[in-house]
């Protein structure tokens, strides 16, 4: 992974010293809250419902064991012994005190981590396919270019006060695991005539006005990528609306002006700035690529794996759901579920973090990933080591076999923590998972993505859930709207609203009716929920969701 240079380390130390001084000046009264707020947000510090919240960047979701250990130590020393992994591959601490935050940032800097640009109207943490560098279906590892983009965006003088926040994701695989089409810019690594380049998708986003991204360019060469990105953000910076927060994202700029108009403006801007890019970025990219050399894979006997797979049904169930194909023969990509039934989605205790860090060191070439689906990935594990790995995960309550199933739910923090939320998300996720675990139905139901947001801003990605749940405040009562048929992959689709919302008590039975209805509607057991929905449309699902006389109008 990327190794910090002296420049990086000095930059971070200087930045942390600045923030320490800003905190001191806020506490001694030299800075007002209005003056301090944009400064703390630039450094990832929010003031939430019950406490401050520090959001730490995990660039493109990649961590090593030492970094995961440090996250655990920070959780113990300055928080409540746990952390919350988010849909932007970040980690959030829910309980820091203001005076401690500078020390937390210094501790992070010891392992080359920071909280810069995890908030504010800047270019946020760059996300990537969480199977990057390991996936069997990948053209190239997206992380080197994601790192280049991180360096380009960090403290970029032109882009510190954008009309609104700006999110970039990169993938190098055919199957989109990074929700590219719901990003301000999505970059897909492609090949044309043997040359590697990028498809550039812009104007996607969820939130109040969900939009699927549009292709701006179907092929941009590697040396043209940064000038192209700079031109796009530059055009948005000038053209994006600053009069209305709800219309300020680039998706609205693209929607209101049209992709052709935006392309013409980007072309013009690109022509102007292209000469400034003299190829230094490509030299930097080559250096970064060397840091992401693949690990030295080994050959081992698969006897232990095959024996466990044949004889241990618990191991087999886990292997069937939590493993993905690795490009290297004999290896697997392991997804560690942070969705134990009834637990808070995305939360890990400090002890669990340490277990995962040690397992990564022992069995996984010291690499971990955080997925936007709020799980932890060990990208390179030899199948021979899987039985021992699984036993250790089970002992740490990390052995849940539910990746991609109904209880593998994305949920934002919702009104249990978030100052913007209009309803809770976490208890809904907990209850759905607990209910379907009791019914012993989730393997029968098969692949099904439920995503829950506690407000219209859609941090829980509900628009692209096969079943999306949106928590709202309806006349002072929590109310939950269901959307159906959303999809966050290369076939991206925004879910359709099913009808009136449900009360907190009514939403779990509603989801149960929906899933039971699907089991009746599917043509055969291999037809997934999403396939069935696409074949039949909304009507039959609506009929099971709102049986006659039981409609619970919002």
């Amino acid at each position, binding site marked *: 992974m990327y190794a910090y240079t002296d420049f990086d380390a000095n930059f971070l130390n200087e930045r942390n010293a600045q923030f320490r001084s800003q905190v001191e000046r*806020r*506490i*001694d*009264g030299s800075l*007002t*809250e209005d003056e301090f707020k944009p400064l703390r947000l630039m450094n990832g510090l929010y*003031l*939430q*419902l*019950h*406490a*401050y919240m520090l959001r730490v960047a995990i660039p493109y979701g990649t961590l090593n064991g030492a970094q995961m250990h440090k996250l655990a130590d920070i959780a113990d020393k300055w928080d*409540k012994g746990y952390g919350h992994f988010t849909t932007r591959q970040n980690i959030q601490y*829910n*309980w*820091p*005190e*203001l*005076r401690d935050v500078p020390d937390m940032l210094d501790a992070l800097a010891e392992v080359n981590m920071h909280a810069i640009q995890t908030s504010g109207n800047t270019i946020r943490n760059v996300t990537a396919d969480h199977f990057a560098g390991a996936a069997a279906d990948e053209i190239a590892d997206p992380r080197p270019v994601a790192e280049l983009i991180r360096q380009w965006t960090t403290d970029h003088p032109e882009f510190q006060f954008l009309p609104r926040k700006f999110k970039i994701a990169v993938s190098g695989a055919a199957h989109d695991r990074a929700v590219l089409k719901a990003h301000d810019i999505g970059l897909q690594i492609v090949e044309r005539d043997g040359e590697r380049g990028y498809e550039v998708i812009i104007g996607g986003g969820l939130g109040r006005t969900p939009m699927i991204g549009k292709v701006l360019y179907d092929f941009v060469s590697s040396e043209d990528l940064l000038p192209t990105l700079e031109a796009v953000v530059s055009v948005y910076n000038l053209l994006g609306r600053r009069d209305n927060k709800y219309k300020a994202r680039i998706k609205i700029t693209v929607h209101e002006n049209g992709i052709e108009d935006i392309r013409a403006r980007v072309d013009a801007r690109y022509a102007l700035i292209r000469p400034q890019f003299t190829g230094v970025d490509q030299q930097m990219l080559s250096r970064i690529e060397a840091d992401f050399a693949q690990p030295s894979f080994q050959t081992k006997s698969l006897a232990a794996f095959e024996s466990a797979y044949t004889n241990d049904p618990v191991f087999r169930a886990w292997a069937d759901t939590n493993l993905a194909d690795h490009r290297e023969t004999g290896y697997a990509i392991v997804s560690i579920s942070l969705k134990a039934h009834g637990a*808070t989605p995305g939360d890990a205790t400090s002890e669990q973090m340490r277990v995962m860090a040690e397992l990564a060191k022992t069995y996984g070439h010291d690499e971990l990933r955080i997925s936007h689906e709020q799980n932890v990935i060990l990208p390179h594990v030899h199948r021979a080591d899987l039985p021992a790995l699984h036993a250790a995960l089970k002992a740490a309550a990390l052995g849940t076999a539910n990746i991609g199933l109904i209880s593998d739910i994305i949920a934002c923090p919702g*009104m*249990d*923590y978030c100052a913007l939320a209009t309803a*809770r998300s*976490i*208890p809904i996720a*907990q209850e759905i998972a607990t209910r379907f675990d009791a019914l012993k139905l989730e393997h029968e139901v098969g692949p099904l993505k439920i995503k829950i947001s506690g407000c219209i801003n859609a941090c829980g990605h509900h628009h692209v859930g096969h079943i999306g749940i949106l928590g709202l*405040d309806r006349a*002072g*009562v*929590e109310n939950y709207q269901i959307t159906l048929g959303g999809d966050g992959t290369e076939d991206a689709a925004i879910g359709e609203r099913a009808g009136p919302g449900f009360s907190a008590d009514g939403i779990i039975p509603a989801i149960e009716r929906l899933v039971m209805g699907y089991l009746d509607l599917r043509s055969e057991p291999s037809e997934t929920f999403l396939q069935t929905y696409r074949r039949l449309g909304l009507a039959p699902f609506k009929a099971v969701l709102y049986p006659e006389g039981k409609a619970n109008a919002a």
Partner: protein
Amino acid sequence: MAKSFKPSVITANALLEGDVVYLQGDVWVRTLEAAEILTDEADAEIRLLEASARVEEVVGVYLSAVDTTGDTTKTTHFREAFRATGPSNYAHGKQESA
């Protein structure tokens, strides 16, 4: 026509700890039960202005309506109820000291 004034408390987040506080006299207290109930609108407005000026102690000061008809002070919106008690997934925040 202006809405009639409802009994209210003054609430904010503490600058250093970030947790929810309520005003009682001149003192910021940590529980809703200990908060001073303001029943006169003119008085409440003045107290709010004074409290908002205490920028070295608190952030985001506002008036929050409460229900005083029962034995204990109750919030009138679920958001305020969560602020008063803490998150529902762990016994953290105010539930730890309760």
